[in-house]
């Protein structure tokens, strides 16, 4: 119910009653997509629903769905950012905004460029994608036994295609490693949360529970964040979501060579995918990771499909 209220509070008063009712009916809500002149769409688990234009909950038929006009999209956007888009300039440049509760609002609209490659801002917002943040306590329970040897934490890489619960799993893993669990004592975890997805920080405050020994570098580029954490916060383990660029990989190597444990996620369908990625070759050759966990999604349910050791042998 709390989540329903959090999401409903993203809408201004004239739309809120419609959404409150619909959100109560939307079980397993994952995201809400609002597009100008198109019916408002809700993704729940593996199914799609539309907000009924008569205000009576949800429908499967798009023609019965409520289409949002330009003014309404603008009102929702203004309400989400508290009529202060300038305060979220950096996030808007990245194409999203984190809101109270750790939910993320993705933006589509007209991009104003600065130079060739940089985005100055996004204006004339025409579409919003509200991604519901989920904290599943215990999501990492099945993985934890593989991550400790003689009560020592082993470096782990979580691999999955988008939408298979990597971030949710990493979030719970961070919390359990930080608080301590039956396999090992609590450790200081440093999190570089470049896209504010793990902690779901809103105005600097973490909205999700990442454990009592966790320090978060919010909205900070991964490579820089890892360096800052190493210098100032003495982490035992560093957690990074969606490892990407060369600089990230170099910073990760430095961290590993400093004796810090690693928890990272990468996109990929399986171990074959990451072995083919040139950017990850250095990490794999140096065998910086002791465990590789592959996640899949079947029938709308995310699960750990397999766990491999550092030599890609099944555990």
């Amino acid at each position: 119910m709390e989540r329903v209220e959090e999401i409903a509070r993203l809408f201004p008063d004239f739309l809120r009653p419609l959404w409150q009712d619909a959100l109560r009916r939307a079980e397993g809500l994952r995201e809400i997509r609002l597009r100008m002149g198109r019916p408002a769409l809700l993704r729940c688990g593996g199914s799609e629903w539309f907000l009924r234009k008569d205000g009576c909950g949800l429908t499967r038929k798009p023609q019965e769905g409520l289409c949002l006009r330009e003014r309404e999209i603008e009102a929702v956007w203004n309400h989400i950012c508290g009529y202060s888009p300038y305060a979220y300039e950096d996030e808007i440049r990245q194409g999203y905004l984190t809101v109270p509760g750790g939910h993320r609002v993705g933006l589509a609209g007209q991009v104003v460029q600065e130079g060739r490659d940089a985005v100055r801002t996004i204006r004339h917002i025409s579409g919003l994608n509200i991604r519901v943040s989920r904290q599943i306590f215990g999501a990492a329970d099945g993985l934890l036994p593989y991550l400790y040897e003689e009560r020592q934490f082993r470096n782990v890489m979580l691999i999955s295609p988008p939408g298979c619960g990597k971030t949710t799993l990493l979030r719970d893993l961070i919390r359990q490693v930080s608080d301590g669990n039956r396999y090992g004592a609590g450790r200081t975890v440093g999190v570089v949360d470049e896209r504010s997805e793990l902690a779901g920080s809103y105005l600097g405050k973490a909205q999700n529970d990442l454990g009592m020994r966790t320090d978060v570098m919010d909205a900070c580029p991964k490579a820089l964040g890892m360096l800052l954490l190493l210098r100032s916060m003495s982490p035992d383990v560093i957690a990074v979501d969606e490892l990407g660029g060369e600089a990230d990989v170099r910073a990760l190597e430095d961290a590993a060579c400093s004796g810090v444990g690693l928890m990272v996620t990468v996109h990929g369908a399986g171990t074959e995918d990451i072995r083919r990625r040139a950017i990850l070759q250095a990490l794999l050759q140096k065998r910086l990771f002791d465990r590789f966990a592959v996640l899949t999604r079947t029938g709308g349910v995310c699960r750990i499909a397999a766990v491999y050791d550092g030599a890609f042998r099944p555990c």
Partner: protein
Amino acid sequence: MLRLAGALLLCGGSLGYGLLTRYGLRLRIRQLRQAQEALRLIESEVSYGKAPLALACRTAGSRAAQPYAAFLCRVYEESRENAGTEFPCIWQRQLDAIRPRLQLSAGEIGLLKDLGACSGYADGRMQAASLRQTREELERQICAAEQESAGRGRSAPFLAAAAGMMLTLLLW
């Protein structure tokens, strides 16, 4: 004896009215300056702290003079409660709530009210510019109010006292 008391009351009342008029004119200038200062505080929060408007109102509210402090704190509180009301409506409603305590003219109140609608800029510089523009307009109003105060404010107590004495003589 009764006549004397009535004469004193009439003269005293007239003088009091004149002094009150002068006080009102001075209070208006003071409140315009306080409004200007409150907007300056919001502007610096927006420009340097990139604070959202509601938070900027909270910070400015803790340092501004009354009744603007109460007004800004209420704007913050209502925005934080998030009942779904749009920011311009909250701003205008809370300004209406302190209106009885303001000595400003309808035009000056309108100027402050319009500021609520000037929100939602994607660029912080634009948001700060709209606040600065209102401050500049308030400066013009202060100049006009000072001129009025210098003229009417100085003569009001004397005129009122003279009028009171004349009325007393007529009624004696």
